[in-house]
């Protein structure tokens, strides 16, 4: 049987890190195999920066970044990119806001000019603000309010599991807060967070580094830096007793259970063992929870979850949709029993090696459907940007794998004991409340 890798082909991502005069960090990674270039701008702002009464702001702002700047009119950001053969998007999370363009490589300077123009001179007006507020409301209806399990699993679970408001509230936020946002609020948000010294620019693909750096200085160099924003307190008090809640989902016709345990931040030493425990419990059909709940006990339709690491304290989660003739106690008992098995007996060398091989392959495949694996310029640019902003070290794109490969069975057992304990757990029972449910 294939166990430890025999002849591992060395693979590493070349990169260089620069800081230009206004404090913006720039990471470059050349690869000339396909005439495509990815440009990523990662801003150090996310839902974590929103105080009570201002939720949903970081995400609404992401929409505003496509609404026009001094030299790019409303709608033109899309057309400049797409008319020249590229694709683009933006994403907001608790930890960050990211924008990207993937372009034919001969349009790199255009992408840099576009990103620089909106960093320098975003123009927001009342009409666009009102319009995007409506678009965001539709986005919430689409993603959350009209989908079974979406609110309970994607919002409520986090509100219960985290104690610090900065971590607990959702990215989409409250529509009342969005309605209260004024043009002035939006302008202040822009000045505070969308400054070059609060951003990382990453470029990966088919380009010449020297030329690219010259273009970066030309377009971004004189955008003035701002006073760095106040650091956010994302610390979490330790949980000392189990927390339980029940929610009736009007759109669901099956019951489900969601569980979450608080775990340390992204860069802590324990995260490597937690990531392997994630693969052992969840990754693939041979994983423990799938085998137990879907195959042996035939009680669940699917099991998902695992390590969701954040720059601040993260969560380890489990989500199980199960058959209507089973009971919550039964499912919860099975999940807990499988975790206790790891806590008491550890994991086998064989499943640990399986998890390590899966992690090695995920680097190329990407974990979210292949979009961001290291085989694409976009995947490389994003990874480099994250490591630079969150960890202060782009070298991790190549060196971090070793940290995972060194994890021992004892370390996996130890993190299971320390973090997946009952008094660190939040349990949410989701009852089906759809009309016409057949029981």
């Amino acid at each position, binding site marked *: *049987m294939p166990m430890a890798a025999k002849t591992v*082909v060395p693979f590493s991502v070349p990169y260089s890190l620069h800081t230009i005069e206004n404090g913006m960090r720039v990471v470059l990674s050349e690869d000339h195999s396909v005439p495509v270039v990815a440009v990523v701008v990662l801003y150090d702002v996310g839902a974590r920066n929103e105080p009570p009464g201002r939720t949903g702001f970081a995400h609404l702002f992401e929409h505003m970044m496509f609404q026009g700047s001094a030299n790019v009119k409303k709608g033109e950001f899309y057309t400049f990119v797409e008319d020249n053969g590229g694709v683009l998007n933006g994403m907001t999370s608790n930890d960050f806001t990211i924008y990207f363009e993937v372009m034919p490589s001969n349009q790199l300077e255009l992408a840099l000019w*576009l990103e620089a123009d909106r960093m320098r001179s975003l123009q927001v007006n009342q009409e666009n603000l009102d319009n995007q507020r409506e678009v965001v409301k539709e*986005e919430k209806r689409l993603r959350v309010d009209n989908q079974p399990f979406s609110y309970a699993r994607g919002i409520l679970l986090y509100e219960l599991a985290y104690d610090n408001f900065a971590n607990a509230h959702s990215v989409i936020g409250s529509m009342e807060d969005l309605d209260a946002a004024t043009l002035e609020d939006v302008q202040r948000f822009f000045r505070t967070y969308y400054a070059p010294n609060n951003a990382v620019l990453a470029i990966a693909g088919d380009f010449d580094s020297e030329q690219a750096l010259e273009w970066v200085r030309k377009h971004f160099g004189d955008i003035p830096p701002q006073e760095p924003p106040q650091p956010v307190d994302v610390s979490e008090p330790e949980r000392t007793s189990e927390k339980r809640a029940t929610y009736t989902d009007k759109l669901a016709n099956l019951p489900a259970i969601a569980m979450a345990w608080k775990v340390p931040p992204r860069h802590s030493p324990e995260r490597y063992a937690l990531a392997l425990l994630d693969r052992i419990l969840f990754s*693939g059909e*041979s994983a423990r929870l799938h085998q137990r709940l879907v195959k042996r006990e035939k009680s669940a339709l699917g099991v998902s979850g695992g390590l969701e690491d954040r720059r601040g304290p993260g969560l380890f989660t489990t989500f199980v949709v199960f058959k209507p003739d089973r009971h919550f106690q039964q499912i919860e008992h099975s999940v807990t029993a499988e975790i206790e098995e790891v806590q008491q007996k550890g994991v086998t060398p064989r499943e640990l090696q399986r998890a390590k091989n899966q992690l090695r392959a995920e680097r190329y495949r990407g974990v979210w459907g292949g979009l961001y694996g290291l085989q694409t310029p976009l995947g490389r640019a994003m990874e480099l940007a994250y490591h630079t902003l969150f960890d202060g070290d782009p070298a991790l794109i190549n060196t971090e794998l070793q940290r995972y490969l060194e994890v021992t069975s004892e370390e996996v057992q130890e993190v299971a004991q320390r973090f997946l304990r009952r008094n660190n757990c939040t349990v949410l029972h989701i009852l089906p409340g759809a009309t016409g449910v057949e029981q």
Partner: protein
Amino acid sequence: MSRADVITTPPPPSALRPLVLPTREEFTAADGLRVILVEDRRVPFVTLRLVVRAGSVHDPANLPGLAALTAHCLTQGTQKRKSFQFARAVEELGATLEAHANRDYSAVSATVLAENLTPLLKLMAETVMQPAFAPDEVELAKENTIQTLRYQRTQPTFLARERYAQVLFGNHPYSRIAPTEESVNAMTPDTLRQFHSSNYTPDNSLLVVVGAVEAEQLRKALDRVFAGWQPRGVTHESHEQPPSRERRTVHLVDRPGSVQVNLLIGHLAPRPNDPDFLALEVTNTALGGRAGSRLFMNVREQKGFAYDVGSHLSEHREASSFSMSAQVRPEVVGEAVEEMLKEVEVLRHKGITESELDSTKNYLNGTFSIRLSTQGGIAGEIVAIEMLELPRDSIETYRERVQSITLERIRQVVQRYLFPDRMAIVAVGEAERIQPLLEPFGEVEVRPAMM
């Protein structure tokens, strides 16, 4: 250039860098399995698709879902390994191996670290040649399929797609996007075995491999693992044509509690291998196939009716469809439908502009290069050629064919294929609230979501 000019003027492109198209090597392995290989050594990784012309279109009329259940059960144990052993063997290689059926074919898709390709091929051959279809595994798969089916009925997107396919495709098998509880209950391990043995043969299949692998090494491994897999001369039935549409109709799926309306609006379109298809794709892209498109700029960016709005030209072998989609709040559903139909009407009267045509060509050719930047993207393009019966040089000629499309061609295909007054409008939402708003668009038929 002054500083002000640098800031105000979009920079021109630098010299275009050549796109090296993937080089395909083709050979026959073992007893007649056609193989297409693209060597790609950028990462020590391999992506594989074993496609078998056995899709839901080949389901017997009384057993919708048979191709899907067969594909699912392929990976649930072989004659040599129980399902757990099989899954573990795959995952220990750092591999994924999954089988799914879509409309025209089934695909066993795999990815693997290059160093573990040979053992992965063995597992792939085992699943295709010697699946167990063990009674307990089939029973569990049936039970879970039925539960999943009930769960899908709570999802508005599923309900919209289901009704839309029924309306558009009539008696053609494309009208069914999911099995029924009756059909699943009627399936036995023998039904699956029979479907498998009459469809999963090398002459009905194709293996596409993209990744860090040498042709000679691959051929040797394939000769060994697929030895004994014999061609059987598979024949496929032909199907009744989908109905032609003479007028616009509205099909409402009543979903109490919906806070949005899911809309699908459209009709049939020519097949992907039709000479008109690409010109229609250009038209579709300008209308609703990208963020800068007319539908997006109007319905989302100007009106704020929807987060997600666009249009799509589906690619299926026997019949395709042109569809516009959006999810909107109930009170604006009438206005949203009106705007969407109006955009098609405007196309019919005025076509698209010269600059829209140029920019759409750039967009299609640019995103084509982006697709070719991943192994999965390359494999997908090759599978499409084979499964949709596209010209064999489609990849090589793609950019040139896009470039050659003229405004006159666009005018022709718009007149020939886009008819707002014959479209089917499917809406999933609260009937009571939205029915009056949809009545102006045609006769409204209402059905419940739960059946």
